[in-house]
């Protein structure tokens, strides 16, 4: 049974039936799924959740699907890594990495939103799924869509990293590489979506799709032993993930799964594309769009759809935001890899580098239980590190050659 009551405009409050629609016909405000929280409160307990398989459907009452997901695509329940080495390095007590670099099957948190979107697309009876993507979403729709038997149209900016393009092509979708940036791809897609009756996961399926992000928040709380963290740092492109993580924390409290929730939420962006953090830092809630220029391409959205709501989350939770340079992003990727063995994509570098600044400025206190949301795998954006890593030691296949190098290494270390 489903606990979804319908859709509601976040701006003017008008209500709609559950349909593949995404904006209010009256004010263009985004539509949001409304649930019967009283019903969920009675049905969903810690015991019920704990007894279920370790994937995102263990929180299905809080996700916008009818009954069991028909696409049977499991994902989620990624590790919450206790990052003691990194914590020591940063001089704080309790740090965790929510490690979606190992999300199944395409190594980013997009597997969560796509699992929900495609389950919903099946329910609505679509035979074609589509998306506009900066890379990770393209992989996820390509993969999940292949397994669920959908026709797939994937629109990406042609300038994306080669490795990301190949990782989509492996699943043989129809990949449309557009000569333009992500905002332009998006604009094209909304015109395509007007004309063709497809399930565009981030357009007409968006209200359902975006809810999938909440599973990351539920897992953080469950994996912390049914406790909300003191601080959570979330990378922001459109701002959607951050608003959904905040929503998930509030829901956990509202349905009685936790008693207390005083988390402060922090937004992380690259300086080359920081419309949300700029608004936070200047204390306004008007988002001025920018033309992105950063190596963190998965965050390069100059015109963030949920930017306004993101600023509200910061206000409501008494959080803040930070932005970081491309050099800081690269250093942070390397730091996370060498301290915790987690190789994050550029967005993960943005998150850690921003957290470092927030810790230094005292916005995140030394004894705060802090969670970093690391949303994608570094293997996808290796280009960002070319020429910026240590070099291999090239040798001839001889023991003496190896020992020569070994001596050098030991000399440097000592």
């Amino acid at each position, binding site marked *: 049974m489903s606990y979804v009551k319908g859709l509601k405009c976040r*701006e003017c409050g008008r209500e709609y039936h559950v349909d593949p*629609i*995404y*904006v*209010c*016909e*009256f*004010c*263009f*405000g*985004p539509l949001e799924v409304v649930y019967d929280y009283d019903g969920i409160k009675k049905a969903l307990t810690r015991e019920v959740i704990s007894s279920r398989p370790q994937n995102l459907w263990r929180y299905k009452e809080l996700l916008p699907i009818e009954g069991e997901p028909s696409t049977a695509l499991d994902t989620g329940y990624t590790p919450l890594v206790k990052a003691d080495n990194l914590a020591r390095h940063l001089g704080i007590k309790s740090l965790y990495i929510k490690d979606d670099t190992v999300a199944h099957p395409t190594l980013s*948190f997009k597997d969560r939103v796509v699992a929900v979107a495609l389950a919903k697309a099946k329910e609505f009876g679509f035979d074609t799924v589509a998306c*506009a*993507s*900066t890379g990770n*979403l393209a992989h996820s729709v390509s993969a999940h869509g292949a397994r669920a038997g959908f026709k797939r149209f994937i629109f990406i900016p042609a300038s994306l990293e080669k490795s990301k393009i190949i990782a989509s092509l492996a699943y043989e979708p129809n990949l449309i590489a557009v000569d333009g940036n*992500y*905002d*332009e791809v*998006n*604009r094209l*897609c*909304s*015109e395509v*979506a*007007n*004309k063709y009756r497809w399930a565009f996961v*981030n*357009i007409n399926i*968006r209200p359902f*799709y*975006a809810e999938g992000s909440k599973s990351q928040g539920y897992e953080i709380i469950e994996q912390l032993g049914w406790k909300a963290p003191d601080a959570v740092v*979330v*990378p*922001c*492109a*459109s701002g*959607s*993930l*951050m608003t959904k993580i905040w929503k998930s924390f509030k829901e956990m409290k509202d349905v009685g799964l936790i008693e207390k929730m005083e988390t402060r939420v922090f937004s992380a962006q690259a300086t080359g594309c920081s419309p949300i953090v700029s608004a936070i830092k200047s204390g306004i809630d008007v988002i*001025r*769009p920018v*033309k992105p220029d950063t190596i963190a391409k*998965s*965050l*390069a*959205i100059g*015109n963030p*759809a*949920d930017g*306004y709501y993101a600023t509200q989350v910061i206000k409501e939770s008494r959080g803040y935001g930070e932005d970081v340079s491309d050099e800081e992003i690269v250093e942070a990727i390397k730091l996370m890899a060498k301290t915790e063995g987690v190789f994050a994509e550029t*967005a993960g570098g943005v998150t850690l580098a921003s957290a470092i600044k927030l810790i230094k400025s005292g916005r995140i206190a030394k004894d705060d239980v802090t969670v970093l949301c690391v*949303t994608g795998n570094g293997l996808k954006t290796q280009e960002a590190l070319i020429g910026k890593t240590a070099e291999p030691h090239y040798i001839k296949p001889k023991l003496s050659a190896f020992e020569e190098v070994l001596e050098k290494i030991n000399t440097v270390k000592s």
Partner: protein
Amino acid sequence: MPVKVLIPVPLQRLTKGQETVDGSAGTVITLIKDLDQKYSGLAERICEGDKVRRFVNIYVNEEDIRFMSNEETSVKDGDVVSIVPAIAGGC
């Protein structure tokens, strides 16, 4: 040649299903007000008073009006104006 205006699906009920309509030259805001004469209700969906709503993006010849003069951006005959609801993506 008039200004060509691309109408998004949520507004096509007002334009009797037409995906594109003709508008007259001037500024973005005069264009919208003018279209409202023909397609009643259009202006109040897109604007609050003389300001374009937060969740509406307007492009003149593929450039976001927020990078130009917002509502006062000029439109001339032959220009293409797209009205696009905001879309989520990335994180």
